[in-house]
């Protein structure tokens, strides 16, 4: 019997390391005979810590929410040959509370996530790893390989969705003695963690994809530009690089051929704009990460002036699978122009938040309701936000929109790198627009005036609206500025910064108007626009009166209290303090 513990960042945050230590202590000398192993992220972040039991007869049981204290009952049940139904989330025979979560998924990128130990290359090799690289080297036909990638229809998973095979072809055809390949792992979108999970759970898949890409374009050096905020991913990548070099799968003369490929890690220093490819190149060169004018594109003039190919983590993780299984296996999935699968990081007000990998062409509703179980506390579904600060909000009315590059773009949002934040009726859309703009405004590098100043002015307007000081003409001003910022910025950051504002204005204009004309926040989220009242449920305990900093609450003890609206500063303290739900916000 083998017990596997998921030790990704989510798992560790939920206490998986304590579970691991407890298991070690209890299965050590004298305890039951089991083999312990580590793995990465299974994707069910909402049920961490996750522990998988693999029986000797090949059956697999996945248990969720296995904290330190659940280890003992779990081991006791196993010793008696029983199944612990309370914690069971999935079995390979189709039972378990979360079977629906995994049943609709189609795992290509996440094929090894949560099954192999990311720190052991043998696990990856046993799962068919580096077969694709060996095949590519044996065939020695870079042009054929590029044709295969074009045929597969794989598009860049970082967000823009450019055909990966074409990008490789441009770099291959560009003249230059030295060429570079870069893996963009600077996952900066707040609310997205797909790349982190892949790097933590299956680093070799990314390395193999890079090595195949390097062979295709003729690069001998590669960089992985990874966020410094992902220490676990960095640690596991370094282990993986060392192991692959030791086995002759990276480095000089790979597998006895003339092909060499060195990979180095560069830690990002915390700048969102470095997800833009020319800014990223600047950052690797040791400069301020500011975008450059394109053309020349990196494919012809990139890192240190050499032809450079940049792909995202998820794109590279797809590559070995496509080489092993063929282009048609990949392009049979998805829609006409968007092939394969996409990984989404589900977060926000959704019941099952975590990583899902679904074939392109599935609808937003299927992802949110069928796979992720719908909205927390069964509230009303309001919108999803796709594509992070560069994306937009898609309202619940459009939940039957299918997920592919073109359909998503049509709504005004973008596919983006895969963050999907679900919002319910308690989320204020004006506040969401303000939140994203605050982010892009802070992260703007300042090179283009419209991005630097325009976003600032837009943010000021939105902050004013949320603060109850909106005025006539604000919405027109926002629309005008959005157009200007979009058209007058050099890179993707500025060009897409107005997207959250434009989409919320398009679909939730009445909410903006309610803020400005009625001074009301329909979602009851903008504090300055709330009015507080005390209902008959008040028993006169005076707890609210004691916390009120502006003495707005008066009333005799054991009698109904009142709030003086003229004195109330909407600090929310009374609402938080009242144990009898006697204070209402409107």
């Amino acid at each position, binding site marked *: 019997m083998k017990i596997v513990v998921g030790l990704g*960042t*989510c798992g*560790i*945050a*939920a206490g998986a390391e304590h579970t691991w230590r407890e298991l070690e202590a209890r299965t050590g000398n004298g305890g039951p005979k089991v083999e312990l192993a580590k793995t990465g992220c299974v994707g069910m*972040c*909402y049920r*961490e810590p996750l522990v998988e039991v693999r029986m000797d007869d090949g059956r697999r049981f996945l248990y969720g929410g296995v904290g330190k204290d659940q280890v003992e009952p779990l081991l006791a049940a196993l010793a008696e040959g029983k199944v612990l139904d309370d914690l069971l989330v999935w079995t390979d025979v189709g039972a378990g509370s979360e079977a629906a979560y995994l049943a609709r998924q189609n795992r290509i990128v996440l094929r090894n996530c949560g099954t192999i130990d990311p720190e052991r290359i043998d696990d990856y090799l046993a799962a068919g790893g580096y077969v694709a690289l060996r095949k590519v080297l044996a065939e020695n036909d870079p042009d054929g390989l590029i044709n295969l990638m074009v045929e597969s229809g794989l598009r860049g998973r970082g967000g823009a969705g450019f055909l990966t095979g074409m990008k490789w072809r441009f770099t291959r055809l560009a003249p230059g003695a030295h060429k570079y390949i870069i893996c963009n792992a600077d*996952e*900066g*979108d*707040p*609310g*997205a*963690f797909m790349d*982190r999970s892949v790097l933590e759970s299956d680093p070799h898949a990314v390395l193999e994809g890079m090595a195949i890409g390097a062979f295709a374009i003729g690069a001998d050096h590669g960089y992985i530009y990874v966020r*410094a*905020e*992902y220490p676990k991913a960095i640690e596991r990548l370094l282990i993986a690089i060392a192991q692959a070099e030791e086995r002759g799968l990276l480095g000089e003369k790979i597998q006895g051929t003339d092909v060499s490929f060195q990979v180095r890690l*560069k*830690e990002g*220093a*915390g*700048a*969102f704009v470095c997800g833009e490819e020319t800014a990223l190149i600047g*950052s*690797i*060169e*040791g*400069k*301020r*990460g500011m975008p450059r004018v394109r053309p020349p594109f990196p494919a012809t003039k990139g890192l240190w002036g050499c032809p450079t190919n940049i792909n995202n983590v998820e794109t590279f993780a797809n590559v070995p699978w496509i080489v092993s299984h063929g282009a048609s296996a990949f392009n049979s999935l998805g829609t006409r122009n968007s092939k394969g699968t996409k990984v989404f*990081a*589900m*977060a*926000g*007000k959704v019941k099952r*938040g*975590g990583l899902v990998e679904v074939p392109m062409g599935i609808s937003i509703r299927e992802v949110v309701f069928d796979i992720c179980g719908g909205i927390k506390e069964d509230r009303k579904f309001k919108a999803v*936000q796709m594509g*992070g600060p560069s994306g937009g909000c898609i309202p619940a009315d459009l939940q039957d929109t299918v997920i592919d590059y073109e359909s998503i773009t049509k709504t005004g949002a973008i596919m983006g790198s895969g*963050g999907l*934040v679900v*919002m319910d009726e308690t*989320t204020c859309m004006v506040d*969401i627009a303000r*939140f*994203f703009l605050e*982010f892009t405004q802070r992260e703007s*590098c300042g090179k283009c005036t419209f991005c630097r100043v325009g976003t600032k002015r837009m943010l000021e307007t939105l902050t004013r609206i949320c603060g109850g000081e909106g005025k006539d003409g604000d919405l027109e001003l926002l629309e005008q500025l959005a157009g200007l910022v979009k058209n007058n910025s050099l890179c993707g950051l500025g060009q897409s910064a107005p997207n959250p504002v434009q989409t919320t204005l398009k679909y939730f204009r009445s909410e903006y108007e309610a803020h400005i004309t009625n001074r009301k926040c329909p979602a009851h989220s903008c504090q300055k626009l709330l009015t507080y009242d005390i209902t008959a449920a008040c028993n006169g305990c005076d707890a609210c009166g004691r916390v009120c900093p502006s003495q707005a609450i008066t009333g005799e003890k054991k009698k109904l209290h009142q709030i003086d609206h003229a004195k109330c500063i909407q600090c929310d303290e009374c609402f*938080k303090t009242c144990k009898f739900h006697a204070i209402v916000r409107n």
Partner: protein
Amino acid sequence: MISHRKLDFRTLHFGGEEGKLIPALQKVQETDGYISRERILEIHRQSGVPLSQIYGVATFYAQFRFHPVGKNIVRVCHGTACHVSGAKGITEALEEELGVANGETTPDRQFTLDTVSCLGCCSLAPVIMINNDTYGNLLPKQIKKIVKGYREAAGGVVQP
């Protein structure tokens, strides 16, 4: 003041490759906890990179700090998922408990409060990290107790 451990930037820097300025600054921060004026001068003297360029790069990236940090670094996630799940309330509770605003350090150098864009544990939102420990699914009223744990670990009650 920092104890002046010697760092040899010549080995880190310009081994024929200009890209080493950021790793050099990261090394300084790892050693000292922040980037001091003296260290910038040191990099400049040893590498010959113009001061303006070093300063320009260092101020561009959010990772680099120019002031000493507290013993415990409290990072509050302000990712989208945390934002919609109430990160604002958590930040306010922390600001009140520690008596400092975002980016500041308590006068006793015990805590530095930082808001960050995303810690990547979105399904546990709202999340904070103190040093390397993550706390998820938080409510503002839990903050006091969590902070207290670190205060006690520091020995004695800390005067605000």
